[in-house]
């Protein structure tokens, strides 16, 4: 299980004077759903294209199952890609599309036929086998692209923002379907996206990329609950950045003074020292009114947005503004008026000091 499917070692890439990747290193384990998450221009697509073989790194090496592949052309790598635009061959039927890779691998005709049938069955597209891509909807094309890429049983499946062209409801359904396909086939999936929700929902592990560097690698919970720096905390989910003063830091914990005058002990990554720092608290972890803990402080409601299931509040205390959200658990849930004062607070375990 912990065998390495992909090893990226010291890979860098420049486009002219622009540094797309700055000496990146990380491993992807066999059979895991690995996501590269980051804003556009963070280098995630470049990295994916390097794994496929469409780009080559300026420095560093890439190993696929322990084998150096930088010099190997795309058609000789046991890696398949699901393209963002699907890239189905418009002049071929779905069957022909799915069979294309198998024919090039020199499979026997009878084996190709049964494999194509099996793959189309798996993505629920059997009844359209003889149609052409133009006769399909976006979601259907997406599933055919998946079947085509999975048919040759690649060592690694690369997915380049495959859900971004679908509408919201379909996207949700495809997430579950992708996750299930990955579990069933046991193939290593490398998924690229800028959508943090997708990444949190589907991945075994996430690499957050930013500015051509790996910012953090971890499980979805680690990334969301224990972001190592401001970039990760900001990009994944919503959060409040509160200016705090670190009084003492040791052993992964720190004593800080909040702008609301409290002294609290919170978790902190290695490298946090005494002095000014940033505290990250997620809006949903700030409790209001009768749900607020003993350490609560009074805050004024500056604005609120009623979202149905939730209400988002913009609050102010001691001249510091912050956001909180509350689940409307009952019919009378949203009763705090704008301009009113309410008790607000958060558990010490819900906050985290960040580097820089």
């Amino acid at each position, binding site marked *: 299980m912990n065998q390495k499917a992909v090893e990226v070692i010291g890979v860098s890439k420049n486009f002219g004077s622009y540094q797309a990747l700055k000496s990146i290193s990380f491993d992807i384990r066999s059979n895991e759903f690995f996501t590269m998450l980051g804003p556009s221009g963070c280098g995630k697509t470049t990295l994916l294209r390097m794994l496929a073989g469409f780009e080559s790194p300026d420095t560093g090496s890439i190993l696929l199952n322990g084998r150096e592949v930088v010099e190997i052309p*795309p*058609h000789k790598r046991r890696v*398949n890609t699901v*393209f963002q635009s699907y*890239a189905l*061959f418009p002049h071929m039927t779905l069957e022909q599309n799915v069979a294309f890779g198998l024919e090039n691998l020199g499979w026997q005709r009878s084996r190709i036929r049964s494999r194509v049938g099996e793959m189309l069955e798996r993505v629920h597209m059997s009844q359209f086998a003889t149609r052409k891509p133009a006769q399909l909807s976006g979601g259907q094309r997406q599933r055919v692209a998946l079947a*085509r*890429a999975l048919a040759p049983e690649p060592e690694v499946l690369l997915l380049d923002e495959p859900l971004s062209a679908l509408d919201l409801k379909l996207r949700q359904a495809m997430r579950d379907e992708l996750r299930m396909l990955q579990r069933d086939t046991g193939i290593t999936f490398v998924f690229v996206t800028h959508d943090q929700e997708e990444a949190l929902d589907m991945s075994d592990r996430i690499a957050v990329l930013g500015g051509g560097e790996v910012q953090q690698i971890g499980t979805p919970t680690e990334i969301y609950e224990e972001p190592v720096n401001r970039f990760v905390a900001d990009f994944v989910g919503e959060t409040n950045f509160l200016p705090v003063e670190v009084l003492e830091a040791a052993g992964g914990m720190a004593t800080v003074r909040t702008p609301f005058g409290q002294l609290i002990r919170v978790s902190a990554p290695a490298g946090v020292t005494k002095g000014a720092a940033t505290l990250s608290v997620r809006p949903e972890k700030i409790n209001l009114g009768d749900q607020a803990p003993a350490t609560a402080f009074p805050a004024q409601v500056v604005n609120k947005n009623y979202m149905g299931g939730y209400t988002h509040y913009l609050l102010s205390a001691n001249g510091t503004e912050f956001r909180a959200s509350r689940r409307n658990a009952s019919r009378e849930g949203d009763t705090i008026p704008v301009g009113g004062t309410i008790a607000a607070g958060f558990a010490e375990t819900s906050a985290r000091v960040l580097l820089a």
Partner: protein
Amino acid sequence: MTDSAHHGPVTATAPRARAPGFWHNLAFWGLLPSWLLMGVALLLPILIIAAVSVATRGAYGGFEWGFDLSGYRQILFNEGWTGELEFTPQYLVIILRTLALAGVTTLICLAVAVPVAYHIACQPPRLKAALVYLITLPFWVSMILRVYAWMIILGRDGPLPRFLEFFGAHAGLSFMYNDGATLAAMVYTYMPLMVLPVFASIEKLDGTLIEAAHDLYGNRWVTLRRVILPLTAPGLISGAILVFVPSLGAVLEPSLMGGGKQMMMGSLIQLQFSGGRNWPFGAAIAMTLLVFVMIVLLLIARRATAKESTA
């Protein structure tokens, strides 16, 4: 007009809108100029030539209206003194030679144009526009001048023989006045007509499809054969038509470059209308040429529509 629409004041315009009078048929009057232009510029000349082809040859050149198929008969048969018909392949040879020359010209243009167009399509937008402009540049110079330029290039003491002499070829070399010279000039003349449509179809080609082909274990040859060629076929076909059709009627290149030694259909037709003074025969050859072209175009059109209906 449904009944529910009649709850307002009843107007008299409804029936008139349904059946407009002749003078109010805007579509007819709007399209009339283009129908007239097509009729006068396209249909009328062809009808005249068709009429001439079945006319009788005049005693002193020209023709007399009538119905006489001897013009067509003359393509394959010679009429002896006693009126018996004798099969003579001389014009058939000319027709076949013309078809072969046009075919070879088309194939060479295809082979050269595909890599050229591909290369242009891969350039950044500004350079691409400049290169396309350069491809069309020869059209700005009269064709006859360009053919004379080729006569200089290939002829005795021209740049090409001189260049080869430099590498040891014997002096006084000339490449003029043979089928090769004719072919060179024809390929040169019709090349832009091939490059432009091929370029247009290659440029439209989605680059990720090529990547997808490589990704699915297709090498360069497989990718070219199974993805690039099928998807650029419309451009290749229209380029081939644009080169093949005028090649069939080429007059200038065979007579200037080939030295007029090898008769082609174009020259043959011209000869019948000028020196030969046999207009019905010339018109009959022209109609034969037209039928060949129509057959080729119909076959291609039928294939294209057959493909579309299965798409």
